[in-house]
């Protein structure tokens, strides 16, 4: 029973990782840039979620607003940070991204205060017994529903719509895609919007599970999401999903059984190193 419970806890954490890592792997696939500032968008989602919920009383409204706002800020980050640097070595864009990420932490602190924000009346607190002896809060169930819904929705878009097919073509060969009439810029903006909106949704859900949004909430995702996309195979969407779920479960078991030797991050990176020794290209090379 404990083993099943730990698996479930791990998959919930993995679902959150997946929502965050998706945007990162999309951006890497399109631009070959490691978008560290993505984690700042995750934090922004958390803040929008708390502020809108506390202001309006509607969590659904907060979730949608957060996804919309964070998606737009994601597009703006492409326009303002990355687009002017596309002709530069990727290292320059990476440094800019890290700079924006660090600055954003202090900006959140200045705007929202150092203590962080909490829900005055946290929604979705009810419990459901999913298996005998294992009950989950509505919030945790929503994390899974949201991750499955959003990610399969995106999968459907990628396979069945013109923009999805164009996006995949752009990842494989931007020059050829452009010469076949694909508007590469549109694809980039759309990818930033979707990836950022998903990170925003993850931010809202994490803020609800912890009932706390802090300026430094993005610190762990900023590097763990990088580990996940490396683990999955850089640029591979499917790989990132598999890696997210695997990492969530490995961490859940690791925290209990080797937690006194390695903390959660060390477990994640030990797992990453072990996998890369066997499969240097990552779990799934390209999805």
């Amino acid at each position: 029973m404990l083993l099943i419970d730990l698996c479930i806890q791990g998959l919930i954490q993995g679902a959150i990782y997946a929502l965050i890592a998706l945007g990162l792997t999309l951006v890497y696939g399109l631009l070959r840039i490691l978008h560290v500032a993505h984690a700042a968008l995750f934090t922004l989602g958390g803040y929008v979620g708390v502020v809108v919920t506390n202001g309006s009383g509607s969590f659904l409204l907060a979730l949608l607003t957060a996804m919309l706002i964070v998606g737009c800020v994601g597009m703006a980050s492409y326009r303002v940070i990355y687009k002017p640097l596309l002709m530069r070595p990727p290292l320059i864009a990476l440094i800019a991204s890290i700079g924006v990420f660090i600055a954003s932490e202090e900006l959140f602190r200045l705007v929202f205060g150092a203590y962080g924000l909490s829900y005055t009346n946290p929604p979705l607190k009810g419990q459901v017994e999913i298996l005998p002896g294992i009950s989950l809060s509505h919030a945790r169930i929503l994390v899974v529903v949201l991750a499955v819904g959003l990610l399969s929705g995106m999968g459907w878009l990628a396979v069945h719509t013109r923009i999805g097919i164009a996006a995949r073509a752009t990842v494989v060969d931007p020059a050829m895609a452009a010469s076949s009439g694909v508007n590469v810029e549109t694809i980039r903006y759309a990818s930033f919007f979707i990836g950022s909106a998903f990170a925003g949704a993850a931010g809202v859900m994490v803020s609800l599970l912890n009932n706390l949004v802090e300026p430094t909430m993005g610190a762990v995702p900023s590097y763990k999401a990088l580990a996940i996309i490396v683990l999955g195979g850089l640029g591979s969407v499917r790989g990132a999903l598999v890696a997210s779920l695997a990492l969530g479960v490995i961490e859940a078991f690791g925290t209990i059984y080797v937690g006194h030797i390695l903390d959660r991050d060390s477990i994640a990176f030990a797992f990453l190193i072990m996998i890369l020794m066997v499969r240097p290209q990552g779990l799934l090379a390209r999805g």
Partner: protein
Amino acid sequence: MPDAVPFHFMYAHNAPVRFVGGAQHEETEMRHYIKSALSTGMLATGVLAAGVLVAGSMVMSASADTIKIGFNVPLTGFAAADGQSALHGAELGVGQVNAAGGINGEMLELVVYDDQASPKEAAPLAVKMITQDEIVAGVSGSYSGATRAAATIFAESKVPYISAYAIHPDITRAGDYVFRTSFMGEVQGRAGAKLIGEMLGKKRVAMVTLNNDFGKSLATGFKEQAGNFGIEIVAEYEYSIKDREFGPIISKIKADKPDAIYASGYFFTAGPMVSQIRAAGLDQPVVGQEGYDSQKFIEIAGGASEGVLITTSLDRDSSAAETKDFIKGFAAKAGYPADMVAASAHTAILVLADALKKSGSGDKAALRDAVAKTDLTASTGHISFNALGEVQKDVQVQIVKNGNWHHHSVISDAVLLAPPAQ
């Protein structure tokens, strides 16, 4: 483009949008960036330097006849919330001393620096406070890492230094000039064992330990005394300060079925932890420590915080005038209720002010001796120091009731709570 993406972690050479020239071109391009980066850096440094000069001269102009106390505190970075509270507490103390006529007619002045809770910031700031600002003594409103780094410099320079709430054992061991007005982790851990084993009568305990110096030293003290109070530790789990998600640990505790949970942490880890513990249906008593001691803990954990017990320094329901004044003054100044770090910083300032009054002169050795002989009632109770400079005072047990911290009990067992003397 090839189908498989080569693996380059930080620097992807094959960016499809970039390669326009050969190696030569790339090199000149690189140089160009380095140059512009350097000039931007220099410009930024210049601006910063100008800012520091302006700030510095402001301090100078205001400080003709004042006694300066250095105060390093994290005002940015991850510890900024505690830093802000500590600063309010210290400023309140300085304000109270000055309003009551200062130190034999001279006013106190707080020289404040942001150390970001980082040793590499705190060390140079300590040097600056001692050599340039010419402070008579220093107070740390910061965490252990930064405080240890600064304490060494204060001790070597023979300038008195008080750690307000940093708990690492090595801080006071830096030298004779370093004191601490808060409990060491071990001492509070022992008090926790007495609280659970004797006062609550719970014998099977699961420990959740924060794996930094704070949590580890609490766990050491708790385990040292657990046997004496008949406690059986059924399991101990560790987590890092970055963790906010405790699902797996809580699932395992559920299976362990303990009578009580002894969990170390700060309000920003303990808040999510306690709310997740209760959300998972566990109803055992949760016992924490001074790291929980903030109204923000109650705000984060919400209804789940009801009944949580902590060992700490500040008694919200104290009838002592010093504590009542502090609690009232703090809420008026800061706009939110007082917490442990604020009370500790406030106490440290009052200890220094008291010693300054008694030592009279500007002599730092005399001031150090006066601090060592402290016998003062402050906002966190009656303060005196042992030979190592560790505080000797009672442990307050507080409980959350109706959304506020309240008095539960006091542990005043001098033998159990004796800090190490060397």
